[in-house]
């Protein structure tokens, strides 16, 4: 039970006083407008005659205000919304200056702006005498509000990714604007519209200077009535004004409240998500119905001499060449900033390579073909699902753009829903989907258009570890069963090895190595690849007689027959991975090391050991044995798995 302090009550008192200060005269004016005689008070009785009289006197003013307000709104929608889109999309110095300039009319008193308009246009009598000159002032005053409101909404969502998603499905400029941008900017457009209309109805500073006796608006009429009419008429007119403005104000407050679309019960979501019992591979076993995707292999992809320098000078990609066979899944792997996403976007057509680069899909040169016409399927890192459409509309969007009939779209939708095991999600809203579900919808949408090539930009990065593991398997089976050519970008080497027929390791804008997962893992071409693809241990020693001697022990050289040391006799390095060293009984190993720390991970124990090597070694132990710090252990190496790096 909260007991309120003295401080609370005094603050409450102040607040109530302020509230009364603001509200009491409003109540007074409402009462005055319906009282027969204000001075006599309520005793004189209530009447509607003042309101009727106001209507007779001022109804044309009221209609004119509404006309100006609606026209002002129409102009704001037609000119302001597109302008806001351009300014939100292209954030460069020019648009920033424009944004600043647009707000200036709000900083300058309306009186001054009206004066300026009169000085320059007052001579055009027809214009000066019409309501249009008032409209001009209102538009200048309200445009910044509409534009700012729409820019705020567009900037708060990843509109550019949604647009890229739509482009990848074939949507051109106008289709994107009206089907994606405008519907998703609707909250901003609505809020802006209400604000524009409200401001126009109540505008006085500008209007007073620009009006004539024949072009009065409500606030002008109010000023008139306060000055020259009896109090009851002024009050009655004010009542009509309140009647118009208060619903608008409430509307604006209601729109401003964030509204949540209620997500479904967690149990329900789990059920659909963890359905890995019957994975995508079942597509193969079904009888092929007419119109269904036959096992096609997609096209091959070839990139020749593609480099990319961005406008700000960043060299994202050095000239690279890459070939992907039809039906193959190639994974581009590398750390952030290595150029893998840029490469993918060049294949997609979202970026153009620097002059001299070319891209071929099969026999076709697609270098100059924009993404809308390239017929690629793209899955984005944050899925880019259109929030203004439900799952079904998202999936068939590309088909709609291509002009497929309703019947064809429905059939393809059914195929996709069953292929991805998301039949229950047919009418769901995008906000109601979990991460794993969104990923499936994104895949369905990309595949629905039967693309030549499927491009995936880190599709699993946003998901938790367990989901990633299970979805990795499903994607792999899906890609194999459809037989499509796929290029997959990731920074996770486990993912790359699981999914790729071929892995392309990239570093600082260059290709470091191309090869199968096994080749990359067991025969890395340089230190970067070796260390990126997994943990590497390094033993440095010298060659003497028949032995490779290193701190802690030695190995017979003839046991290392497949290693090439070149001409070097000292500072020879061999490398091995943690799983290729085992802990053995004393005397049975190649060398001894001291345990620095041990981590029990469940399926294995990770040991950090030291023994005069330049860096501590990381090895693994299996079984139940536990280790203590400082303990000396014997280690035996799997000699077949040692490798050298010849840089």
């Amino acid at each position, binding site marked *: 039970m909260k007991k309120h302090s003295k*401080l609370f009550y005094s*603050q409450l008192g*102040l*607040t*109530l006083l*302020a*509230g009364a*200060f*603001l*509200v009491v*005269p*409003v109540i007074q*004016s409402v009462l005055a407008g319906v009282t027969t005689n*204000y*001075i006599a008070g309520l005793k004189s009785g209530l009447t509607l005659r003042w309101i009727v009289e106001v209507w007779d006197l001022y109804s044309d003013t009221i209609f004119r205000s509404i006309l100006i307000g609606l026209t002002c709104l129409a102009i704001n929608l*037609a*000119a302001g919304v597109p*302008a806001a*889109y*351009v*300014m939100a999309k292209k954030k460069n110095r020019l648009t920033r200056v424009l944004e600043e*300039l647009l707000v*200036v009319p*709000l*900083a*300058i*008193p*309306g*009186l*001054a*702006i009206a*004066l*300026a*308009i009169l*000085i*320059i246009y007052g001579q055009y009598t027809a214009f000066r005498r019409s309501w249009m000159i008032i409209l*001009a*002032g209102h538009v*200048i*005053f309200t*445009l910044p*509000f509409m534009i700012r409101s729409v820019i705020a909404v567009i900037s708060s969502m990843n509109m550019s990714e949604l647009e890229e998603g739509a482009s990848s499905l074939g949507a051109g*400029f106008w289709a994107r*604007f009206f089907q994606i941008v405008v519907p998703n900017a609707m909250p901003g457009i609505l809020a802006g519209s209400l604000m524009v209309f*409200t*401001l126009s109805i*109540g505008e*006085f*500073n500008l209007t007073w*200077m620009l009006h004539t006796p024949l072009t009065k608006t409500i*606030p002008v009429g*109010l*000023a008139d009535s*306060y*000055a020259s009419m009896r109090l009851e008429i002024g009050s009655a007119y*004010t009542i009509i*004004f309140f009647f118009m403005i*208060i619903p608008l*104000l409430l509307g604006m407050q209601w729109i401003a409240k964030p509204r949540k679309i209620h997500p479904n019960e967690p149990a329900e979501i789990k059920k659909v998500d963890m359905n890995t019992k019957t994975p995508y591979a079942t597509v193969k076993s079904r009888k092929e119905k007419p119109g269904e995707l036959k096992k096609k292999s997609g096209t091959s992809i070839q990139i020749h001499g593609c480099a990319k320098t961005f406008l700000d000078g960043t060299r994202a990609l050095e000239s690279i060449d890459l070939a992907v066979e039809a039906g193959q899944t190639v994974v581009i792997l590398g750390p952030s900033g290595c150029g893998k996403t840029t490469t993918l976007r060049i294949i997609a057509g979202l970026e153009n390579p620097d002059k001299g680069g070319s891209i071929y899909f099969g026999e076709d040169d697609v270098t100059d073909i*924009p993404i809308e016409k390239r017929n690629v399927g793209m899955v984005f890192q944050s899925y880019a699902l259109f929030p203004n459409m439900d799952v079904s509309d998202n999936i068939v969007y590309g088909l709609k753009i291509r002009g497929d009939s309703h019947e064809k779209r429905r059939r393809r939708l059914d195929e996709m829903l069953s292929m991805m095991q998301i039949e229950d999600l047919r009418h769901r809203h995008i906000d109601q989907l979990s991460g794993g579900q969104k990923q499936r919808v994104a895949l369905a949408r990309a595949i629905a258009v039967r693309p030549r090539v499927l491009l995936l930009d880190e599709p699993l990065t946003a998901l938790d570890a367990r989901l990633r593991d299970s979805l990795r398997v499903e994607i792999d089976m899906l890609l194999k069963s459809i037989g499509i050519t796929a290029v997959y970008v990731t920074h996770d080497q486990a993912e790359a090895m699981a999914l790729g027929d071929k892995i392309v390791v990239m570093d600082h804008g260059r290709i470091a190595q191309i090869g199968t997962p096994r080749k990359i893992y067991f025969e890395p071409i340089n230190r970067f690849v070796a260390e990126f693809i997994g943990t590497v241990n390094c033993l440095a020693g010298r060659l003497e007689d028949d032995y490779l001697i290193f701190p802690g022990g030695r190995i017979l050289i003839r046991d290392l027959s497949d290693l090439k040391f070149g001409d070097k006799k000292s500072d020879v390095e061999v490398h091995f991975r943690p799983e290729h060293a085992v802990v053995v009984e004393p005397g049975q190993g190649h060398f001894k090391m001291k345990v620095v720390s041990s981590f029990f991970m469940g399926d294995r124990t990770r040991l950090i050991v030291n023994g005069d090597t330049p860096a501590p070694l990381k090895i693994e132990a299996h079984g139940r044995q536990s280790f203590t710090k400082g303990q000396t252990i014997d280690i035996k190496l799997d000699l077949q798995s040692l490798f050298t790096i010849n840089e």
Partner: protein
Amino acid sequence: MQRQNRIYLFVIILPALIIFVSFFILPMARLALETLQGPQGVGVYLTMLTTGRYLETLFYTVALSLGVTLVTLIISGICGVFLQRNNFFGKNILIAMLTLPLAFPGVVVGFMIILLVGRQGLVGSISQAVMGEKLVFAYSMTGLFLGYLYFSIPRVITTVMAAAEKIDVNLEEAARSLGASTWAITKDILIPALTPGLISSGAICFATSMGAFGTAFTLATDIDVLPIVIYTEFTLSANIAMASALSILLGLITWGSLILARSAAGETIAASG
């Protein structure tokens, strides 16, 4: 296709650009030029800054605006924080009452003041009954002050409530765990956290008061504020050059205070009313 996209983008922003240039940029440029077209030429600026009448008006307008800003910040600051942090029966109604006048034009505000403290106002009737003397404030500086307060309080309260909501509760809890009293928390955590919001809304309040026309117009006081003087110079004296020069002065002052507001708060805000 990229070039085509760029062309489309330019085409759709064109209408807004044309409207803006035709009805704002060109007129304002012409206004600036007009100041030099009068009988005194450039000297009009000197006259403006040395004539007693204009200086007096400027002084009154600035003093009024500053006073209103100060009082509003204090009242709205206390009420805003109080409302944001406490829950009680009728709170939402109280908030609605306090934010209602946001959409009122200056003329209506003037009328509200007349109803409260005018010749037939509520305060007058009450004071008549209680003290035998009818108190009438509406047509003096006090009335103007109350009017400006009327449209300023709602604006600043909404900003303060929004700023108070963003204050990290953890900061106060940390202070309490270290033994700070309520006053110490208010002084060391609350007020510093609110200060950017207070500065920005204070600057907006100042700018709005400087440029307010409708309220002063309705109250028709003897004391003229700058917007009224501009109006009379233009309509009654046909002294277009002086009216333009005064407008530019007023515009510069309000624009300057809004730039201050933005640098304190980091967003663009409007002065209307």
